[in-house]
């Protein structure tokens, strides 16, 4: 048997010896360029003129980048970047900002962090973007956060509600979206103080998003020396929610707060209706999708849902009329809905920041001026403020109520107590 499998050839060259020159080589190179800082700082050294060269800025153009999935399971989010692109086209048609047209480059990362890193490196090092706007995803933002901070690339409105981007403060990252902690705290306060809730249960997605919601509810209850809420979780792959509905019912809670995406959220509401359990319902803004009404049936009527942008179909709001007119002219192939509304709002906020940065556009100037923004109401975001120590963005929300297949606004803006 040994003969069968013995080596057929005699290798005279010791292969390991070939590795030695390689080791020497990368020892040398690793010691050499390691001292030079990576990224944007090297681009500035090639400046031939006296004025400092700002990445992505010429007298006639400013380059802006973004990333998000255009395909794959999360491909629906792609509408955000495409709407943003359309918004910048409109601005360019109107003559641009401070004499500069916007060149917008958005990369498709297929919702895979390894591709996000590649996309952001390309945007920063090859396309030399001035700033980013609307980079999407919690894990994806986390994957490039340190890189963007060390290269000091401004990122306005990362498309995620995680608190980690703004707390602790990153000088160049400007969050806008109402974060999940603030959102869940607002819901808890509203339930206890306004709705007369005695006992809360939380139905949440078993991940960073859902847990941030649950933790905020528990923290608010603890602050008031109330017993902890019953948490009932689901996995994104779950399709049957009858067990969770029973658990919520046996908890005896009179109010259920939902930290769920549309499909499981709609299903749990239907299941609770089926077993005759009718608590008061409060939900995070992420559930806001028309499909929820088919899934949940009549049991959803009366549910309160948090929102920080005005309802995208509320044509009594002049800002929404403007948004819908924009959609008809520049993005007629996209749907009127939460994603395109967000993309439109991203554009409004970014353009305002660019206007305020003035004619002499630098990254430092851009950020300094953005830090001075106080109660800006010129976008779909009702009110936006920043300071050098606070980049958390929106801190107020209002409630809509589900009524016969639609969400209708029922409160004004509410802020934390």
């Amino acid at each position, binding site marked *: 048997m040994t003969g069968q499998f013995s080596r057929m050839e005699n290798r005279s060259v010791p292969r390991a010896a070939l590795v030695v020159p390689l080791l020497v080589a990368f020892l040398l*190179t690793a010691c050499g360029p390691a001292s030079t800082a990576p990224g944007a700082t090297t681009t500035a050294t090639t400046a031939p003129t006296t004025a400092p060269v700002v990445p992505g800025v010429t007298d006639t153009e400013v380059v802006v980048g973004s990333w998000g999935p255009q395909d794959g399971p999360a491909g629906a989010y792609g509408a955000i970047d495409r709407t943003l692109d359309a918004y910048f086209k409109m601005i360019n048609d109107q003559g641009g900002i401070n004499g500069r047209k916007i060149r917008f480059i958005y990369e498709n990362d297929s919702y895979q962090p390894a591709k996000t890193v590649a996309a952001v490196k390309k945007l920063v090092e*090859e396309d030399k973007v001035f700033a980013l706007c609307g980079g999407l995803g919690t894990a994806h933002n986390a994957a490039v956060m340190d890189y963007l901070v060390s290269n000091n690339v401004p990122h306005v409105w990362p498309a995620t509600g995680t608190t*980690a981007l703004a707390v602790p403060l990153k000088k160049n990252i400007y969050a806008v979206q109402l974060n999940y902690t603030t959102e869940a705290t607002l819901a808890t306060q509203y339930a206890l103080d306004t709705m007369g809730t005695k006992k809360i249960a939380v139905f949440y997605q078993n991940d960073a998003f859902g847990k941030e919601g649950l933790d905020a509810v528990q923290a608010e209850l603890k602050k008031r020396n109330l017993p902890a809420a019953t948490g009932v979780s689901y*996995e994104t792959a779950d399709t049957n929610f009858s067990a969770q509905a029973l658990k919520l019912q046996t908890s005896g809670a009179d109010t259920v707060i939902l930290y769920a995406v549309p499909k499981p959220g709609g299903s749990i509401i239907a299941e609770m209706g089926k077993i005759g359990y009718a608590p008061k319902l409060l939900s995070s803004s992420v559930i806001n999708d028309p499909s929820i009404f088919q899934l949940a049936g009549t049991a959803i009527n009366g549910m309160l849902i948090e929102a920080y942008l005005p309802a995208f179909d509320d044509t009594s709001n002049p800002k929404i009329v403007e948004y819908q007119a924009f959609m008809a002219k520049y993005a007629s192939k996209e749907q009127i809905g939460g994603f395109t509304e967000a993309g439109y709002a991203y554009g409004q906020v970014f353009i305002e920041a660019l206007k305020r940065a003035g004619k002499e556009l630098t990254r430092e100037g851009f950020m300094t001026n953005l830090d001075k923004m106080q109660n800006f109401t010129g976008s779909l975001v009702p009110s936006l403020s920043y300071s050098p120590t606070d980049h958390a963005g929106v801190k107020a929300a209002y409630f809509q109520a589900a009524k016969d297949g639609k969400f209708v606004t029922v409160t004004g803006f509410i802020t934390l107590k």
Partner: protein
Amino acid sequence: MHWLRTRGRATAPYGLGLIAVLLIPALLNVIPGIAPGYVLYLVSLALIYAIVAIGLGILIGHTGQISLGHAGFFAIGAYASALLTLRLGLPFVVAVLVAGSVSAAIGFLLGLPALRLSGPYLAVATLGFGLAIPQLVVWQSSWTGGSSGLHGLPLASLPLGAFTIVFRTDQDYYYLAAAVLIVLTIFARNVVTSHTGRAFVAIRDSEIAARAMGVDLVRYKTTAFALSALYAGIAGALYAHLLHGISPEDFTVLLSVDFLTMIVLGGLGSIGGALSGALLLTFLQNALTRLPVVHDFKNLYIVVLGVILILTIVFFPQGLAGIARSWRLRRATRTLDRPAGAGQIVELGERSGVR
């Protein structure tokens, strides 16, 4: 692998490869219009995927055992090294080695059911494994960080006596990935040309015949699984430190399919094929995402990729390695006009593909 086989030519590809590895960063620095950091990151990523592909090639191409769950081993290696460096503060080198060993041990265990399963049954079992790992990560969120993942990993470093090399830039990390890949390529080549490798091929071609010849199926099948898991584990560790952070979203079942595609594109049963398949697919994917986004047809790049793969399977079923092989055979018969030697008989045997 055969491109190294003939004795007189054996060192030439190594020399050329080494020169290429050393020259790439210098070349990138002089080509205008491209950012070296971005390209080197992509190359590093491709080299890391190539490590997985070589290991998977040993399992599928040489041993004939299918796996649709190698993203699972990749994830195990990534999480093991991330936890060891982040939570226990172990040195990078130790973390990589432990990550590879842990992955290999789990590979060995997954090899046990493979003794009874074959074909589609084994495919489903490994698929289940690949799907389960990210779920376990989410479930054990108290130490894995759950869906948000682990971030802020320390820089990779290599202590050499009094010195410590820190891999700080994209270029540093590129050299690290290249060095590991070269070492593991040589190791894989030695394995497949050893009696272990021949036992693998015997199992692939006929389990009954292999047993009749005295090949211990239990030993060699589990070895093949452990070996390919070792490669995936080491690659996962390198991946985690390339990105300085990981999350379950990195390790979807699509990644397992990508790995499988790499070795099919490159050519089954060929180490050189696995390597070139990994490089080609990574760059192809990246180049194709640069296609314009056409409205109402958002997955254009996946379609184009699919067409390329179908064309490969139909016209070049032996992949890139098959193209190179037939080209070399033709040249050899033309210039040397010598009768087919033992080496070529083995090569022709490999054309029968995987059973």
